């Protein structure tokens, strides 16, 4: 049994090492991985801003957050400038889909004051955004569970 366990652990270790190495290697293939990582984090930040404005019932601010989301999307495009045409061709439709999903939340906030309904629409937008993140190596994908960088950490 011990031998089997040892072999199992060894196989897991090799697999873990391979996955980590592969993620790092593919991140290194990108021309500007740091810029891409930063701009993807900006998308998450603005998405969280949407959530805060909705839960605080500050609906008038939601269109402003959408404007910031489009700016963050443009920042992603700028960061992607030097990347391969193949990757850009994959990223653009998903980025557009994410922007469209957040626009839907913004448009809805003009009439809808039901926080639950708006949050449900926001959850759909987050799914669209995550589909965009899936195109990038794991090392560059923002962790949605990480607290924001500020000292306040979003007050939970």
């Amino acid at each position, binding site marked *: 049994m011990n031998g089997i366990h040892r072999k199992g652990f060894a196989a897991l270790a090799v697999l873990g090492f391979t996955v980590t190495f592969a993620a790092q290697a593919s991140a290194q293939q990108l021309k500007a991985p740091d810029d891409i990582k*930063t*701009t993807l*984090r*900006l998308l998450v*930040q*603005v998405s969280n*801003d949407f959530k*805060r*404005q909705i839960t*605080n019932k*500050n609906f*008038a*601010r939601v269109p402003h*957050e959408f*404007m*910031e989301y489009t*700016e*963050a999307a*443009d*920042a992603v495009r*700028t960061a992607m400038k030097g990347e391969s045409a193949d990757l850009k061709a994959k990223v653009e439709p998903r980025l557009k889909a994410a922007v469209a999903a957040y626009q839907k939340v913004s448009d809805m906030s003009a009439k809808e004051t039901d926080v639950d309904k708006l949050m449900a629409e926001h959850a759909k937008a987050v799914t669209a955004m995550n589909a965009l993140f899936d195109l990038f190596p794991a090392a560059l994908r923002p962790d949605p569970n990480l607290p*924001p*960088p*500020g*000292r*306040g*950490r*979003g*007050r939970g």
Partner: protein
Amino acid sequence: MRPRLFTSARLSRRTLLVGCLAVPSSVIQCTRRQPSEQRVADLAIESDGDFLAFRPDELTCASGTLVTLTFHHRGKFLSARHNWVLVLPGQLEAVDKSVEHNEGIIPTDDPRVIAWTPMCDKGGMVMTRFTAPARGDYPFFCSTPGHGECMQGVLHVTA
């Protein structure tokens, strides 16, 4: 001769006027001397690029110091505006909430607010000057709606 007298009369009126102004100005200069004896400190703080965080998020100065604080908005991509607002201990959330529906603009007569800068656009710099309060830890934050929940810090005022 008459014009000369007239000139001298004008001169004496001018002298009188200068004399009248000299008394209050010397009084003003006296009152200005006191702040010059006050300890002074320059503090600098900035946004963490476009992210909702201050860098650094802790500042320190001595009580009674005349502080000149400069805030630099280091954002490049987002049009979000930021500012720096220093409030009494335990008042951050209440002040943040009270300006939430007013674009985060701080009213000039809020007794919970010690000092604040105007709102600042990306790449810009704003400044405020204040006398450091009594010893203690004072929270500061950005009052743009939604930012205060993350973008905050502490000013440690020492004795």
